[in-house]
């Protein structure tokens, strides 16, 4: 500003744009159509993203259909108190955390390993065919995957038929809590490990091949190369994916649980999303479940911020 103010008169004399009206400027000409384009987008985000956030006030109210969101009575933190004292809702929060932490802990390495393995394949046709196969399950809905799993592990399913032939006994895989959890985790890996590997594969292509040559010259074996070149090379991507996974720790997808669960394992399978559906939407307890939803969103939000802060310390933050 200071530098410019030295010769303001000359500038004004030189530029005819100064005398033009704002709506004749290039900037306005560019912006007007862009803003017209953007109006539906703003409406969309206000109505379907921000209005629900405002609607979260019902978590502090006793929502009834007749009084509406704004007319209903304020109850302060009563809904939250109820949530954190009821053993049922505590168990549901515990289940959610257990299943999602296990999903991350067990499932997270699979795409990385798969990507590293695929990256080591030299025959292009083989790489392409394996990729085609392992990406496929990602595109199936959980209804399909659940249908496959339930059919295969059912009492009359192929796994039990084989088991019976071998040992003479069958095992109720879907009706036993620990085997149910194993099936839950396994089906998640089966569905998405392949597709998640794409991101790591992309990161792998950016590693300088000469590093491997040099390591090989120095007599480093495959394991050493993977540990010292490949893994450090993709670690930024790994950190980003971990941050994103953290944001989802409070959420166990509704579909997956819904298609796999049954009443016998509900002690472990009932999670926040299925609870909100059953108690909130079907049972009409909007305020209570909105409070649970707010708690879920808040924890996820804080976790993402925390993980990012930690990642930033290592110079790897998302923002």
């Amino acid at each position, binding site marked *: 500003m200071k530098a410019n103010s030295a010769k303001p008169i000359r500038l004004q004399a030189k530029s005819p744009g100064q005398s033009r009206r704002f709506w004749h400027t290039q*900037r306005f000409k*560019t*912006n007007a159509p*862009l*803003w017209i*384009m*953007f109006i*539906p987008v703003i409406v*969309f*985000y206000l109505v*379907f*993203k921000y*209005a*629900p*956030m405002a*609607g979260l006030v*019902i978590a502090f109210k006793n929502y009834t259909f007749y009084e509406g969101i704004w007319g209903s009575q304020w109850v302060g933190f009563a809904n939250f108190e109820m949530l954190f004292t009821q053993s049922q809702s505590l168990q549901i929060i515990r289940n959610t955390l257990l299943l999602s932490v296990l999903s991350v802990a067990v499932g997270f390495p699979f795409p990385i390993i*798969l990507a590293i*393995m*695929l990256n*080591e*394949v030299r025959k292009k046709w*083989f790489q392409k*065919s*394996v*990729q*085609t*196969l*392992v*990406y496929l399950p990602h*595109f199936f*809905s*959980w*209804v*399909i995957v659940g*249908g496959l799993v339930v*059919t*295969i592990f059912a009492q009359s399913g*192929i796994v*039990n*038929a084989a088991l*019976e032939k071998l040992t003479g006994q069958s095992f109720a895989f879907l009706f036993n809590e620990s085997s149910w959890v194993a099936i839950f985790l396994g089906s998640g890996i089966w569905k998405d490990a392949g597709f998640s590997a*794409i*991101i790591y594969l992309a*990161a792998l292509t950016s590693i300088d091949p000469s590093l491997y040559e040099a390591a090989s010259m120095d007599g480093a074996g*495959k394991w050493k190369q993977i540990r010292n070149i490949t893994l450090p090379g993709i670690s930024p*991507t790994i950190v*980003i994916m971990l941050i994103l996974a953290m944001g989802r720790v409070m959420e166990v997808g*509704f*579909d997956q649980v*819904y298609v796999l669960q049954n009443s016998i394992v509900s002690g472990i399978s009932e999670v926040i*999303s299925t609870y909100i*559906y059953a108690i*909130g939407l079907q049972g009409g307890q*909007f305020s209570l479940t*909105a409070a649970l939803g707010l708690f*879920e*969103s*808040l924890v996820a939000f804080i976790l*993402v911020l925390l993980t990012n802060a930690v990642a930033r310390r290592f110079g790897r933050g998302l923002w």
Partner: protein
Amino acid sequence: MKSTRGERTFYVFNYVLLTLAGILCLLPLLHLASLSLSGKNAVMSGFVTLWPQEITFESYKLLFEGTPVLRSFANSVLITVVGVALSMVVTICAAYPLSRREFYGRRWLTLAIVFTMLFTGGLIPTYLVVSSLGLVNTYGALWLPALVSTYNMMIMRSFFENVPEELIEASRIDGSGEWRLLLRIVLPLSLPMLATIGLFYGVYYWNSFFNVMIYVNSPEKLNLTVLIQQMVRSQAVLQEINTMDTQQASNITPEGIKAAGIMIMIIPMLIVYPLLQRYFVKGVTIGAIKG
């Protein structure tokens, strides 16, 4: 370069394990397909593995004649086609302005939009908004709240940002406005990316399950996923089919029908998959690199 012995063992293991991984993704599908095509005795004996035995098409015949599978299929197609078209238009309307440096408020709007990825109102308030708009039991409840997937929009935005500035300058000198620039230059340059995003939306709408379950009540409006899930879930539907058709369809088992129902959802996916495969890798990669 000569490979050492250790390296050779590594490669052998690598190939074997990857082959297993590939097969593991295929086996359940083959098994289900065989079940859906096998006769009653074979299914009951429990030893239909990867090849159909006593081949019969009765499960499929029964599904198409005795259940509203065809109507649900048509509903799924309608939901997907209209949904993808709407979402693509609005997502472009969001991504293009945000990709232009001249756009007023670009920074704040981007922040406000990214914030919705980190914090959401959640299911119940969203449901209240959708129902207060009178969208319950219409497909509008499926389309409107899903018009823009912020993740897809960010991928699209970073792709638009990479359109060379010279092209934009040149077209401005020619006197074209923003709309023309978008339609004639930016979009044609981005076709592969648009195909990818279209694929993501397509898969989303085709697979939509939860939203259909909570927003759509009329049985005749259900899509394929919900219908099949109801059939797989409730024995009642199957029992009904069984008692209804015992005379004419004695070669059918509940397992066979369930398997056939699942196959009906898988088959369209398998047909489209090879066509689209070359696009989605690219799309995911753009998103990964540009964040």
